[in-house]
């Protein structure tokens, strides 16, 4: 049998730390009803579930909360909070647990993608020149080989375009032919659009990694580029 938890010896420091950042997180209001857990596909993985996590947080089992790997399996899909009668901010708690891990000790795959994004503008490490070369090259192929699209226009950084599109870097890097159908649709409706050269990728692993600084940097660079350089009124998320 496992030893009983001695509540007297525990101080919920981590809870207070998270509450300072999300004052309306409602952790103390948990009724332990378990609705969150009943509808969570990550329940039981790593011997953890949302209700248990909130109990552990409220009891001050800070080390155990941070030690579990569960925060990297939970996808922060928010199904738990959407059914929670007390509206407890479980996904934001998970984000904050991720952020509590020393940066270099967060999962390598996510860390690598985040660092690449900060450095190059995409998680797969494709720099803006590579990106521009690939899209212009694929567009040329379509103009040459796909009847009806001889006039297809694809641009990067065309100032004043009505829409700026992001593009998941998986396409230009690993399956460039998948960009064609999207462009054909845009061409057919006569859309006035361009790709940005700065932070052009649709994904954001710094957000997944709970790297506030990196995430913010990516968003700021992107916003400055769209507002000040391209001056486009719309940004279109393509996924």
């Amino acid at each position, binding site marked *: 049998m496992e030893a009983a938890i001695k509540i007297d010896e525990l101080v919920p420091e981590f809870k207070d730390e998270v509450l300072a950042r999300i004052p309306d997180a409602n952790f103390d209001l948990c009724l332990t009803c378990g609705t969150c857990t009943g509808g969570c*596909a*990550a329940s039981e*993985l*790593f011997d953890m579930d949302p209700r248990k996590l909130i109990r552990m947080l409220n009891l001050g089992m800070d080390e155990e909360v941070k030690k579990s*790997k569960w925060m*990297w*399996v*939970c*996808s*922060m*899909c*928010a*199904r738990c909070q*959407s059914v929670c009668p007390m509206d407890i901010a479980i996904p934001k708690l998970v984000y904050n647990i991720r952020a509590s891990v020393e940066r270099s000790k967060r*999962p*390598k*795959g*996510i860390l*690598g*993608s985040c660092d690449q994004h900060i450095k190059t503008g995409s998680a797969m490490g494709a720099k803006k020149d590579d990106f521009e070369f690939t899209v212009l090259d694929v567009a040329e192929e*379509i103009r040459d*080989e*796909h009847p*009806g*699209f001889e006039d297809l226009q694809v641009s990067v950084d065309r100032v004043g375009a009505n829409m700026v*599109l992001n593009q*998941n870097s*998986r396409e230009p890097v690993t*399956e460039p*032919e*998948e960009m*064609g*159908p*999207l462009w*054909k*649709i845009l061409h*057919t*409706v*006569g*859309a006035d659009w361009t790709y940005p050269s700065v932070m052009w990728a*649709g*994904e954001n*692993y710094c957000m*997944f*990694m709970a790297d506030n600084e990196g*995430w*913010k940097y990516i*968003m*700021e660079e992107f*916003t400055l580029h*769209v*507002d000040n350089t391209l001056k*486009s*009124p*719309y*940004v*279109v*998320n*393509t*996924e």
Partner: protein
Amino acid sequence: MRRFKIPHKFELITIIELYAKWIRNGKLKVNSDWNKDIRAKFTVQDPCNIGRKSGSNKIVDDLRFVIKQVVGEENFIDTVPNRDNNYCCGGGGGALQAGFSDQRRAFGRTKFNQLTATGATYVIAPCHNCHGQIEDIGEHFGANYHVVHLWTMICLAMGVLGEDERTYLGPDLAEVGL
């Protein structure tokens, strides 16, 4: 941007809302006749970020409108549950790159069961995380569905899908409209 209170002048929209708008205003002419006799069945994965986490069902309803226009209403079978009550595929939040593959697949098992229960042979996944995860759990747990991007089906329904743009289609649709 809300999170960091970054001021911005542009408005952020999704391509799915635009597809729906262009079909409604007649700029994008799609037709589901190609599927009249084939009757290929489609279901969809609602990305959490444009469903539940967007605060409304507006985008995922537009997604259904577009899908029904391009594959035929009678050939669309929804998952249970769906829209803002959908189950996450288990690939989001960085899970695909986090390195815990066994747990990620155990998470995805719930979604896998819901997708296969529809009987559909095609799963439309408008998000790359979902696309990658649903393909992976399909192979891992042995499903016979194909995972496709929405733009592939729109171009098929426009009659402009090229020969080299059919990577994700199954043999039943590989030649349609060529």
